[in-house]
């Protein structure tokens, strides 16, 4: 069995973002980057399947982006993926989901992957398109937003999350693409020995030029801060002092009993 896991590296969402000079993305220099949270579930599920099947599957982890994404690939290797593929593209943040999906599909097309895992969306753009579009391009069936995964004898049973906590139970064969939702599993932390082992694993660099010539279908014209609507009060200062003031307000507004 051959498994592909697609991951993205995103900034820490608690960062202070500054809009870049070009005005269409954020300044990346001062940000800390990490693996997209949804993709951690995808990596974990692939590794668990490998463990279930007694090490038989080979897991390729792929990421598109500038040099720094090598760190995210290394982490996935330390979590248990076997080999990395880095589609080198410093301009990846300007590509739309269609172009990203086309690059992944172009790489995957003749590799005979039986299963493709992706996150359901990225934390920065949140478009929730790439995994499903990869499936469409490869002609694989796809189930998105999974919170449960089981494999038995060539049949995959997944739980798809719907609103209000309801789930849909779905069965499908292979090849297939699944996109992973938060809570699917508990992603492991790489152990030190596995981090050391990961250093020896191969990361294949590939240029994206020539892989897929798809034009972008949508373009970000401008990145900006949403206008502040809320007229809420911001309290800053010493903790006990703020607690005192807050209790005063809550009592005055009668949201808590006097």
């Amino acid at each position, binding site marked *: 069995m051959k498994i592909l896991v697609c991951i993205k590296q995103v900034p820490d969402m608690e960062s202070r973002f500054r809009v870049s000079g070009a005005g269409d993305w954020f300044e990346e220099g001062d940000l800390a980057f990490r693996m997209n949270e949804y993709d951690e579930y995808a990596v974990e599920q692939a590794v668990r399947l490998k463990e279930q099947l007694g090490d038989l599957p080979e897991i390729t982890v792929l990421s598109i982006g500038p040099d720094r994404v090598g760190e995210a690939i290394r982490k996935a290797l330390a979590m248990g993926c076997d080999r990395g593929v880095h589609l080198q593209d410093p301009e990846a943040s300007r590509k739309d989901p269609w172009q990203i999906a086309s690059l992944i599909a172009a790489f995957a097309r003749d590799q005979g992957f039986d299963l493709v895992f992706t996150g359901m969306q990225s934390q920065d753009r949140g478009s929730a398109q790439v995994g499903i579009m990869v499936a469409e391009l490869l002609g694989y069936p796809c189930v998105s937003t999974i919170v449960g995964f089981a494999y038995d004898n060539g049949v995959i049973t997944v739980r798809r999350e719907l609103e209000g906590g309801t789930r849909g139970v779905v069965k499908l064969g292979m090849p297939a693409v699944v996109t992973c939702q938060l809570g699917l599993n508990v992603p492991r932390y790489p152990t030190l020995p596995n981090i050391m082992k990961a250093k020896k694993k191969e990361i294949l660099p590939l240029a994206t030029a020539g892989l897929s010539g798809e034009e972008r279908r949508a373009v970000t014209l401008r990145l900006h801060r949403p206008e502040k609507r809320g007229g*809420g009060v911001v309290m800053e200062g010493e903790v006990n002092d703020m607690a005192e003031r807050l209790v005063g307000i809550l009592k005055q507004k009668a949201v808590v009993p006097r």
Partner: protein
Amino acid sequence: MNVLLVCECREGNLRDESYELIAFAERLGASRAFVLVGGEDAVPRAEGTLYLADGARGGEYNPELHKRIVLAAAEREDPDCIVFIHSSYGWDLAPRVAAALGAAQVSEVVAVAGDGTFEVGCCNAKLRRTVAPMTSRTVVTIQAGAFAPSGLPHGVPTVVRLDLADDSPRIEFVGYEAAEKKGVDLGKAEIIVSAGRGVGKKENVAVIADLARALGGELGASRPVVDAGWVDHGHQVGTTGQVVSPRLYVACGISGAIQHVAGMKKADFVVAINTDRDAPIGEVADILVVADVMQFVPALTARMMQ
């Protein structure tokens, strides 16, 4: 401008969000037609052409058949824009339709401008992108709640039946599983104090629970706290948890992602405690306390107990 609105049906019923599609079409000043995979009973109250395909035959989760039905309606209507709700139904189907049509897709639109550009959230709603489609036809998903219907729905659509079947489904829908109902009914709570990922670790949840007790309220939680097993799912507030409407909602170390806010925005009074002054929760909070929860919450609890 001509739009095709993709309505949603779940377990035989029309989902109310379908009316938000009409509000979106009105915002664009577009003429509209509808498509629905569902039964007669789920037909929306609206005027216009409705392409109706039998949900019972197709199965509610059969994305490949649903895609073909939307495409069949699109072929007849030749819309400039095909619109879905950004829901588990819409975000699953939209990329399939966009890929098939070679159309740009713009996801989770929160506003539209007169020049044909769309506004979408970015980085957990801290930023926004202005997106321009480069293709003549576009596929759009709209954020649930962003386009409020103007008035009560009325009218009877002209139904056109689409009879398609899936001969060799590659996906088998086994059935639905209801959410576990055990735990608290937060829907009735007057005061809710919720723990978010910012509380740091499981042991710290007790500090948040203490404040809930001191205020005579219930403990709530954001999703990562539930996913990590720090708190039971019964306490989760949000689109995939419970929708609550307390008098007071205290969000402790919660960033304010749309899926969480959707569950608590009906609260009368919102207090947020967050180290990040820019956290999007500040947009819905009446008071944003910029502080470390582990320092501020015990101080607040002590002050309440006095």
